[in-house]
């Protein structure tokens, strides 16, 4: 039995045991995280629930059968009526999946890995992020839950992620593309939750003009979701990728932040007045982050779009945590016109260039 076959058969697996060829084991995000860990990038420790775990849960709990019947019954309406989609989705999630008990062997595996993770982090009931991980990338389709603490909550939120494969938007997405609506196995990544003092995104090129010699960072206080959801205008930093000099700093007024609440989960709160207009990253963090960005880009061989956080519990440089990375989606996919118009000799290039001149108005 080969090792890869083994991976397929587990319910739970450490992230670092996954690599980029394993999207069918626990979804794309998990294998990305695994690959990053293997590349010694500062990704938080964690484990993955495999696609098999998802299938096993639906089968063994009896949910699968009910889902198939329900979908069969409404097949025609679903295709034509978006409201029906909402209604069926709500039924499948709330009345079917969320009511099912997880099979014991699954529960045991999760408990085993979670205990070990708590051991690694040196913290009982370590707060974790429970993230969806589809085998093909469908950004924003499935749900992710932050700051989950303790075994029972963890189990419940894993099921919530699984259930999100039947949320209305992903069902509609599958229907529109004539994909099998009854099944969309997803993996789940369970990662130590960064206690994010600041977080944000980083592009390893200039998103404005595609300049590959620049690194572009946006960030704000607290967890990254406030940035993603547009509640805050983030600070902006532009770094020269080659000389690693900070070329631009735009510090904005950041009124709110998302933080871990006392009972778990995430709360929005006002940013302390003295912090509102202060930079959410200091220079050494900016430069360390840029260097990590450079390393990630080098590892993947293509410009990246990266989510990062600064962990308040850790000290520099270990406080920089990479949450996710993916290929930058605009400039790297644009067909690029070569600047060199001809293969002519240098003197001709200079001659033609001088003909063009520099526009003054």
């Amino acid at each position, binding site marked *: 039995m080969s090792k890869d076959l083994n991976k397929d058969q587990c319910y739970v697996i450490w992230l670092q045991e996954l690599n980029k060829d394993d999207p069918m084991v626990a979804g794309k995000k998990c294998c990305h995280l695994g690959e990053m860990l293997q590349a010694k990038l500062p990704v938080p420790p964690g484990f993955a629930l495999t696609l098999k775990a998802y299938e096993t849960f639906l089968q063994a709990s009896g949910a699968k059968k009910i889902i198939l019947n329900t979908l069969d019954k409404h097949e025609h309406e679903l295709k034509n009526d978006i409201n029906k989609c909402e209604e069926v989705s709500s039924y499948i999630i709330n009345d079917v999946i969320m009511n099912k008990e997880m099979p014991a062997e699954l529960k045991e595996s999760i408990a085993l890995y979670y205990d070990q993770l708590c051991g690694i982090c040196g913290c009982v009931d370590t707060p974790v992020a429970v993230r969806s991980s589809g085998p093909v990338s469908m950004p924003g389709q499935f749900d992710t839950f932050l700051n989950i603490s303790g075994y029972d909550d963890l189990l419940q939120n894993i099921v919530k992620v699984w259930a999100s494969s039947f949320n209305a938007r992903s069902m509609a997405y599958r229907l529109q593309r004539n994909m099998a609506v009854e099944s969309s196995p997803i993996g789940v990544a369970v990662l130590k939750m960064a206690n994010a003092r600041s977080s944000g995104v980083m592009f390893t090129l200039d998103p404005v003009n595609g*300049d*590959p010699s620049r690194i572009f960072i946006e960030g704000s206080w607290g967890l990254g979701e406030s940035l993603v959801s547009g509640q805050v205008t983030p600070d902006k930093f532009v770094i020269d990728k080659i*000389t690693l000099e900070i070329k631009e700093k735009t510090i904005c007024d950041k009124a709110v932040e998302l933080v871990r609440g006392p009972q778990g989960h995430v709360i929005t709160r006002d940013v302390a007045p003295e912090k509102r207009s202060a930079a959410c990253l200091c220079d050494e963090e900016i430069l360390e982050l840029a260097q990590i960005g450079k390393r990630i880009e080098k590892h993947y061989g293509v410009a990246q779009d990266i989510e990062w956080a600064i962990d308040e519990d850790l000290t520099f440089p270990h406080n920089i945590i990479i949450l996710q990375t993916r290929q930058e989606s605009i400039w790297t996919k644009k067909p690029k016109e070569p600047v*060199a118009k001809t*293969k002519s000799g*240098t003197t001709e290039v200079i*001659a033609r260039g001088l*003909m063009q*001149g520099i526009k*003054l108005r």
Partner: protein
Amino acid sequence: MTEKRSFLSPHEVPAVPGTEGWERMYPYYYTFTTEDKEMQEYENKAFWYYDGLHYPEPMYPFDLLWDEAWYMALSQNNSRIFSIPASMGIDHRIINGYLYISPVGIDDPKVVEQRVADFMKRAGYYYENWDDLYEKWKDKVNELIKNVENMTMEDLPQLENESVVFEGVGRSSGFELVRKYNELINYGLEAWQYHFEFLNLGYAAYVILADFCKKIFPGMDDRTLSKMVGGVDVILFKPDENLRELAKLALKLGVQDQVKKAERLDDALAALQENEKGQEWVKAFEDAKYPWFYMSTGTGWYHDHWTWYDKIEIPFNNIKNYIDMLEKGESIDRPVEQVKETKENLVNEYTALIENEDDRAQFQQLLSVAQTCFPYVEDHNFYIEHWFHGVFWNKMRDLGKIFVNHGFFRDVEEIWYLNRFELEQALYDLVTSWATGVKPRGPSYWRAEIDWRKDVINKFRQFSPPPAVGQTPEVVNEPFTIMLWGITTESVNQWLDASGIEPDKMTELKGFPASAGSIEGYARVIKSPEQLHELEDGEILVATTTSPSWTPVFNKIGAAITDVGGIMSHAAIVCREYGLPAVVGTGLASSTIKTGQKLRVDGDKGLITLLK
């Protein structure tokens, strides 16, 4: 095309009261005209910008020689020798003593296309044979300098030496003096012919490389590019390097106290001669001089930009500073290895980021040509502006002594108030009066005229020349205009924006980000090299332009700001070398900022904030 905005017409710049008639100090073709209507129309439509990079001060009539020299030399290499496409020469004029220049373009596309073919053949030859031709250049220039060094200017004898008779010479010392003067002027013009032999092509290669890089890396810094192209062993650093070596040698020989304690160089040399170790140091000092002490204390363009030979206490004080630094345990070495490594890393990293294969090949080719050209671009100043000029000015002073002897001038330094053509006339006046035995007209004529000219030039100093006059062109193709003077859309627009604002109301100035870093400090506006000693530690140097020979002050200052200059201006190069924030090409800094004013200099953005 966006809205067309104009500067003041060159014919409408107000005169400076009390200077009326100033035009006669300069050749007639330097003045804007309203009499020749065709010319007036051309002048009105052209774009004239103030060349404060070379001329931070009003022109002395004689010093205009170098301007005349490059007026022709730069232009001819564009227009008639290398056939730079779409660009003829650079035209020159004077307004109230200040020099304005204007790139002359070519509009007819057919003509441009024909010029491309000629350019490729001619420039191609130079690019391909660059190193050999540069070696030849050094030989030519060395010989030229030798000729001038060997020239002597002697006063006229009461009676000619008998040899004139017995050897059948047939020519007098008076004739020879006129001839020597003309020869000296011609050597000067010749030196400037060579000055531009390679420069247009060097700049062209750099400008096109920069343009290519900006298309792939819009955010690439000019100073990053110049680090990739620039040489490691630059001649302009050699004079200062000699001083560092002398400082080290003093410590090694244990004679540092004799050097340091002496107030003046002569005292130090006398003390050092007393023992063997000291003698060894003195010998090393003497050996280090030639030709490196021809380093100018300014740019070399003005007669009062004295060389280290003339102002020997300057290098001597620098040596003392270096000894101090060594004794404090500081390193005084240029990080040559580091510069080399940085250069290689930059090239490798940028190359790796270029995805397209053709682009990568073209980048490497253009870079390689620019790198080949750069030693010349960086080194020619030492040969011409420092060494040649340094020798030249003093030969002129020798001639000035003869004029003083004959009562034309009260002081040698008055010679600079006559232009080169007037000087030839005055000399002819002098030799004919010597020949005839009749008193010359010169003394009565020139003394009064010189007094008036001194007054006029002083009045010109109070005038702030506008950064540009005339109309903005749509495109600039002239390589020097882009690279050396740094004329860009941004700079032109900023000049236009600023032209209506009172200097007192200005809160911000923009220029080129020439060297990274940000600092707050107090301004010290320096109008001439003589004022350099006023600079205090940490002050921000504000000048029209600077010269690498101001090196010692760069150890002291917190940042540098200049009015004029692009990426290759002296201030930009030196600040990068010394890791100081610098903003160059601000157009207005030295006339807007006052000494003692608090500033914030942002060398990353090219922004100066005037704080209260």
